[in-house]
């Protein structure tokens, strides 16, 4: 059994690696067509790995990606597609910025309070989609897309009407009231790597334990893989949908906290933008497994950090966005192909075994 599991893991990792390789090849062709030198581009892009500053930046960028990928992955385990991480994150960002600035607490408690507010508000916004699914049978893909835009408008309106504070330093950037320093999440490397990185790793570890080592996790996976069969064993699928949506939303609430508590210390427009969406790509490449998510988040974090270097040699850094899109497509295509190949192999094996025991006529 053990060797079979190892074999499966090796196949999974190999197919993800292949997806990245395919994306690199296609992007090389795109670079060539548009008159850029792909070899020089990749030398610059991956040569930056020697620079500790770039690596620290990559870890820092990977932090929110790990959390948002975990938020997406916990939905996937239940066959739920939570595209609403971005919206859930937005709601919790403003709520946490306002609540955090409104109270006074000693440092560790204040940070804890902010994280709890963030998780609660993220879960609350996700609960809408969960409720719509469970009570009204609304597909969560559609409802979370719609709720993303509602969140965007609602937060923009609330920020503009009630919580914005004119800047005292003459800067044009409008923010909410700044959080007191007791709510700041400390840096590991000053201004380069924030301590939220450890929280993100902790989230992945807890994610692993919850999904693979507890009864709840077993029910979650069973319910996602075969809702009919697991209902017979007494698992209520509606309850599982609601719980996984709430968990996903709670994690979504944490996604923006590196930017809020660790960097800007106030809410502003565009804060942590896209970090909720990018988690989808990370979760897909990481195959919804904590270790895979960790590695893919590092990869995407690295690409984001090192892409700035490309501009120095006159190559648009947006090539890495194209790369992300191709990786997502390539990884799902390769997974599907591998799955079909694996199914055929097992069928073939079973057929051979059957032949061996069959009584010759």
């Amino acid at each position, binding site marked *: 059994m053990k060797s079979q599991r190892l074999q499966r893991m090796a196949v999974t990792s190999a197919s993800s690696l292949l997806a990245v390789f395919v994306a690199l090849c296609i992007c090389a062709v795109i670079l060539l067509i548009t008159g850029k030198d792909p070899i020089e581009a990749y030398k610059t892009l991956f040569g930056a790995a020697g620079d500790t500053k770039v690596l620290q930046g990559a870890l820092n960028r990977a932090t929110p990606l790990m959390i948002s990928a975990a938020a997406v992955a916990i939905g996937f385990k239940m066959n739920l597609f939570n595209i609403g991480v971005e919206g859930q994150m937005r709601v919790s960002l403003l709520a946490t910025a306002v609540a955090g600035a409104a109270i006074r607490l000693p440092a560790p408690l204040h940070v804890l309070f902010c994280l709890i507010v963030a998780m609660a508000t993220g879960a609350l916004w996700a609960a809408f989609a969960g409720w719509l699914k469970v009570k009204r049978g*609304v597909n969560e893909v559609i409802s979370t*897309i719609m709720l993303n835009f509602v969140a965007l408008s609602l937060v923009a*309106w609330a920020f503009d009407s009630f919580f914005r504070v004119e800047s005292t330093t003459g800067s044009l950037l409008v923010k909410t009231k700044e959080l007191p320093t007791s709510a700041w999440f400390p840096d590991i490397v000053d201004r380069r790597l924030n301590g939220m990185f450890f929280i993100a790793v902790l989230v992945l570890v807890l994610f692993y334990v919850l999904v693979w080592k507890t009864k709840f996790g077993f029910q979650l996976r069973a319910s996602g893989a075969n809702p009919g069969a697991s209902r017979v064993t007494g698992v209520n699928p509606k309850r599982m949908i609601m719980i996984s949506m709430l968990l996903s939303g709670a994690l979504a609430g944490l996604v923006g906290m590196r930017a809020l508590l660790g960097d800007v210390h106030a809410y502003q427009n565009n804060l942590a933008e896209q970090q909720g969406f990018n988690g989808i790509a990370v979760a897909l490449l990481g195959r919804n497994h904590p270790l895979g998510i960790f590695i893919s988040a590092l990869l995407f974090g690295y690409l984001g950090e090192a892409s700035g270097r490309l501009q120095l040699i006159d190559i*648009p850094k947006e090539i890495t966005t194209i790369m992300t899109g191709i990786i997502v*497509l390539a990884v*799902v295509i390769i997974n599907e192909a591998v799955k079909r190949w694996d199914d055929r192999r097992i069928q073939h094996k079973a057929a051979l075994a059957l032949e061996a025991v069959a009584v010759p006529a």
Partner: protein
Amino acid sequence: MKFFKSLTTGQRTVALSLGFMLVLSIVRLFTNADDITSSGTISSTLRVATPILLAGLAGVWAERVGIVNIGIEGMMIIGTWFGGYGAWKWGSWAGIALAIVAGSLVGLLHALATVRFNVNHVVSGIAINILAAGATEYLSIIFFKGQKGGGESQSPAGKGGYGEFDMPFLSGGRIGSWHSPDILGWIEKKHDLPLLPDLAGFVRGLVSDIYIPTIVAISLVPITAYILWRTRFGLRVRSSGESPQAGESLGVPINRLRYQAMAISGGLAAFGGAYLSCVFTSTYRQGQTGGQGYIGLATTIFGNWTPFGVFRGAILFGFPSALKFRDEKNVPALLLVIAVILVALAIVSLLKNKQLLATGLLIGAAVSAATYFLVDEVPQEFVAATPYIVTILVLAGAQQQLRPPAHAGIAYRAGENH
């Protein structure tokens, strides 16, 4: 009610629009917000609604063939870029043509991933959205940066316009060099009358100051309806979305149909994008679509996966933005319109013995009317969020009336699962 149910979708659209006009007319007389039914508002509604309409039709074509298309936004983005590029290089019509070609190719990519490689439709759509955003930003830097009038995130201005159209006699169009009388314009100004000026404004808005691409886009509504419901090709497309296995057993080439319908879907979405960058404005700008692809997706649902329904949805969702665009002061009057409509819905649900729903609707009406008397201005954000909220409400409240294609979004491979 029975009478209403016996009508066709097209007739229902007319009946509902007339009812809507009546409500608007009453509210206009009451509030003096004359612009809510002026021809100017109607024609700018058409302009705002056209890209949404095209995106919605793209959704209809995709879902009717059985493919969920979350990538409409990405296909629109591709349309804005290639529209801007084509209009800059060769002129306005070339822009639209180039955009449609590029969009069809992206539609084919979505079909390739979902049909050939059996990828989850939502995942493929998301990948397309990421790809489209990245590709257009990359291409802008390569092609537009450093050009006269262009930059990292915008194209140089496009060449040539499209020509506007005014109907002779009805809205004062020319015949040769002679200005015909503007009859509807004259009726429209009689603001004290009920309904008549509103109808005149509505019709005049439809036939005056209208761009040719708008006419093309609107004519795609009956064309789509005709193709999907009156031709063999359309029947096969719908069979692919309802029950591909059944279609396959009758010899319908499901996979080929899916490629064809997705090429059409991508082309329509890109036309919507090109409308933004070539017709509505004359330059491509990064982020120009601003989520209108998703509003299109919402109209597909709101319109019950029918072209006329999508048209209704696009007008409804475009109307508040157009009104806002013209004069802020008119927007609060819409709150009264909503209140009246909610009361009407409450009466309908009372007749159907749904007291709880009726109570909810009446409370909504009261809140809406009260808000009208309390506020002077409706924030932009609420106007922007309306389509999404309406869609969620429709999905939550009227799911029984919705009939999506039975097989949309479900994995299908030829020869399996029989």
